[in-house]
């Protein structure tokens, strides 16, 4: 079936999505700003693979499409499959929350919820040198991103970005509560305009860290407030917008 027709519908693994023939690109190339790829470039996101005719679906879910242009990082349309799963597979560049399970000399082993433990070097923190080691203990929570993550190698994490700054990554502080949700909910919460987050932010001050591996860490002033936020976030997956608003109204009324 044609790719454009299936947008918003359920697709199953094995379906082939046909792409339209590429339009004439010479005229468009002149209009491009420097550094951008040709207009016909298509981003084939998670759940899709390239094949001769078009795109081959590898996961079941809803097909999503994003239009080309808009000055976003990926010029050119993007197709991906919005699927639901609880098990995380490490992907390069994803920011995740890991739990330190072992300290092996210069290396920390982190549990990220994948099939293997990720490794983290002690030098991958901002301002870390051989003499100035970060104070990481077994059981600490770390927010970092994947440097290496493929099916052939052990995943590696770092708490530093390409320019050498930590930009919010590193050891997550004391207190707070860590819990696990499905990956689809995380993506919903991280969407640009998420109503759930906006509504929760009106309640009371709190801090939130969302890891792409399904783990969320919440910290608020009192234990009770923390638990309320945890319960709302967990229940959000199955509540409709109406039910959520009712629940929040009751809370803010209290």
């Amino acid at each position, binding site marked *: 079936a044609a790719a454009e027709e299936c947008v918003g519908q359920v697709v199953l693994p094995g379906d082939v999505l046909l792409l339209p023939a*590429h339009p004439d690109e010479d005229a468009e190339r002149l209009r491009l*700003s420097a550094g951008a790829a*040709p207009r*016909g*470039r*298509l*981003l*084939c*996101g*998670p759940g*899709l*693979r*390239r094949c*001769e005719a078009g*795109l081959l679906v590898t996961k079941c879910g809803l097909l*999503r499409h*994003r239009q080309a242009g*808009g*000055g*976003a*990082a*990926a010029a050119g349309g*993007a197709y*991906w499959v919005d699927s639901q799963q609880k098990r995380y597979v490490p*992907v*390069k*560049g*994803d*920011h995740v929350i890991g739990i330190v399970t072992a300290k092996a000399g210069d290396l920390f082993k982190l549990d990220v919820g994948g099939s293997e433990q990720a490794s983290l070097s002690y030098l991958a923190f901002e301002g870390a040198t051989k003499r100035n080691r970060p104070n990481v203990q077994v059981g600490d929570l770390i*927010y970092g991103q994947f440097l290496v993550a493929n099916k052939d190698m052990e995943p590696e994490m770092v708490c530093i970005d390409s320019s050498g700054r930590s*930009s*919010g990554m590193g050891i997550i502080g004391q207190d707070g509560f860590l819990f696990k949700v499905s990956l689809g909910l995380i*993506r919903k919460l*991280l*969407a*640009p305009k998420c109503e759930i*987050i906006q509504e*929760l*932010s009106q309640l*009371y*001050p*709190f*801090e*939130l*860290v*969302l*890891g*792409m591996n399904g783990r969320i860490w919440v*910290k*608020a*002033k009192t234990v009770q407030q923390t638990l309320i936020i945890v319960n709302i976030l967990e229940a959000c997956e199955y509540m409709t917008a109406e039910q959520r608003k009712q629940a929040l109204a009751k809370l803010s009324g209290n």
Partner: protein
Amino acid sequence: FMQRGLDSQTKKQLEEEEKKIISEEHWYLDLPDLKEKESFIIEERSFMPCEDLLYGRMSFKGFNPEIEKLMVQMNSRCKEEEIEEDDKMEADVSDEEMARRYETLVGTIGKKFLRKRDQRVLRDEVEEDVNSNTIPSKKTKKKFLKPQD
């Protein structure tokens, strides 16, 4: 396979035979179409570029001010790429402002380290040249003159 004293003809025959053998066994792709498409479709396993997700660390109502600053920084980074075209205009204005501020800064701090004679000369010159930032005379060192606003 190279034998001594081989005639040029037999050499050529041998080479031709080799080529024939190679062309029969040589595997080649029968799909030129696939190669064209390769440059157009990029495979990608992460959701970040697809859905433009926000940064994972958030803080609300001033619980953690550093993270709130970070939120603003990170989320405006995504939008900065949209304003690429207007950057040139904005950059001009900010460059001028920067130059003006830098001039005044260097002047005021530079005066601190001047000897008394130079300070007096500088003051006289600044009173004479009201409107323009001209190069000072040979006696005084070359400095940025504070423009009279």
